């Protein structure tokens, strides 16, 4: 079953092809990561998929009644708007205290409800965005560079949270990131985008693909090594936690 699919989607902006016949499909439960250099159309693709942009040609199809949880690249809350974390979780629909609490917990937070959004740290803010996105138990969770402004350990722990969320909600995850090694460690499938889809497959396949190496240089051999390393490390961490 396909939840969300793009069929030969093209998007032109200012006489320039930002997206060129991009085809992709998302099935339940998988984590797909879109990687690509700056200006490769990653964010544009996500915005086409959520319906914020109309493709110039091609089509986006969604499963009937598909619920999307979206974590934007950045969210600017005007300082003129007072907004507690709890109230933010109520957008766009009111949710029960129980659901709100559970979503915060799943996102790795506790007891922030009465805090003002403006007073949160970068990491807390991103996790609140994640909590809001998962509150309605979405079929697809979409994240656009969700770890911007987090340091390396911060974003690594954020992506571990994503894996935990996927396991708990059994939703598909589609994310965009430039942090190759961290993201790839958590992905089932990687799509390398540069206007068009250069290559796709498991993290190992993509890292070895010539098109990928051309885009990110041979230095990415190191990224794969780091990926291995990170991966081992996670298991290490987990076993520690289990032992405690």
């Amino acid at each position, binding site marked *: 079953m396909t939840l969300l699919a793009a069929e030969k989607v093209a998007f032109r902006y200012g006489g320039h092809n930002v997206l060129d016949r991009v085809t992709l499909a998302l099935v339940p439960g998988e984590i797909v990561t879109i990687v690509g250099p700056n200006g490769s159309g990653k964010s544009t693709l996500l*915005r086409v998929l*959520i*319906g*914020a942009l109309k493709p110039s040609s091609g089509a986006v199809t969604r499963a009937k009644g598909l619920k*999307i*949880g*979206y974590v*934007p690249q950045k*969210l600017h*809350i*005007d300082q*003129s*708007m*007072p*907004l*507690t974390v709890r*109230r933010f979780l*109520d*957008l*766009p*629909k*009111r949710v029960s205290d129980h659901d709100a609490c559970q979503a915060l917990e799943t996102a790795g937070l506790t007891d922030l409800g*009465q805090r*003002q959004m403006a007073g949160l740290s970068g990491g807390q803010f991103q996790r609140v965005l994640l909590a809001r996105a998962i509150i309605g138990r979405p079929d697809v969770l*979409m994240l656009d560079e969700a770890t911007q402004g987090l340091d390396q350990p911060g974003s690594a722990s954020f992506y571990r949270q994503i894996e935990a969320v996927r396991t708990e909600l059994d939703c598909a995850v589609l994310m965009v990131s430039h942090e190759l090694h961290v993201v790839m460690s958590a992905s089932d499938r990687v799509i390398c985008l540069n206007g068009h889809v250069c290559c796709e497959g498991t993290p190992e396949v993509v890292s070895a693909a010539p098109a990928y190496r051309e885009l990110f240089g041979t230095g990415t051999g190191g990224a794969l090594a780091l990926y291995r390393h990170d991966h081992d490390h996670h298991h290490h961490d987990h076993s520690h936690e289990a032992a405690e």
Partner: protein
Amino acid sequence: MLDDFVVRGVLAALGAVLATGVLGCFVVWRRMAYFGDAMAHAAVLGVALSLAFSLSIYVGVIITALCIALIFIQLTDAGQTADAALGVLAHTALALGLVIVSLLSGAKLSLSAYLFGSVLSVGITDLAVIWGGALVVLGVLWWQWSDLLTATLSPDLAYAAGIDPRRKELLLTVLLALVVAVAIKVVGALLITALLIIPASAARQFARTPEGMAVAAMIAGALAALLGTQGSLMFDTPTGPSIVVAAAGIFTVSIIAGRLRS
């Protein structure tokens, strides 16, 4: 009771500020102050055209304000910056209104009432229109509150939730035109934006949620309406500007109180 012009005036002012208080929160959150100003200035043109064609002032004002908003969208789509487009439109509408009025004989006197308001001269019909309009604005805001808030916070979050933020923006524009019509006899075209911005800004100091801010803005607005009309009777000053001065006083107190608290 409604025979008393003071009672009518106070009621008219209260009706107007309840609507401007809540809608003003969106104007502040979305930084639409200048946009509101342009629509209010367009109201002067609306009044002039209404006088020229013997239309209802309210109808003329709403239509003109909406036309200005439409032209604004066209201009910005065509590459003008929002700032410049609003500057051109606001002052063109104001100037054109003044020119048209000068061509109409005997209309000069009545125009000043629409520039600076004349709340103590409102009749029963005006009162009905003001409260009717205000209740429509408040009702629509109540009904669409969550969607409007989501669209204001982030268009992309709205899209992902199946809400079209452009339609919500259009809705706010229509409500703004309605509020301009509701408030024009109370404070006049030149000061309508004040009733949108000042109560909401005063309310910001005390609010923890958007709803709290909306309620506090209504309270601040109502207080300003009561103090302003009272003051204008006491000191024989024009009522509309007096209400705005009272609102500014409340804003100042709120800032000081906010400072003291933190």
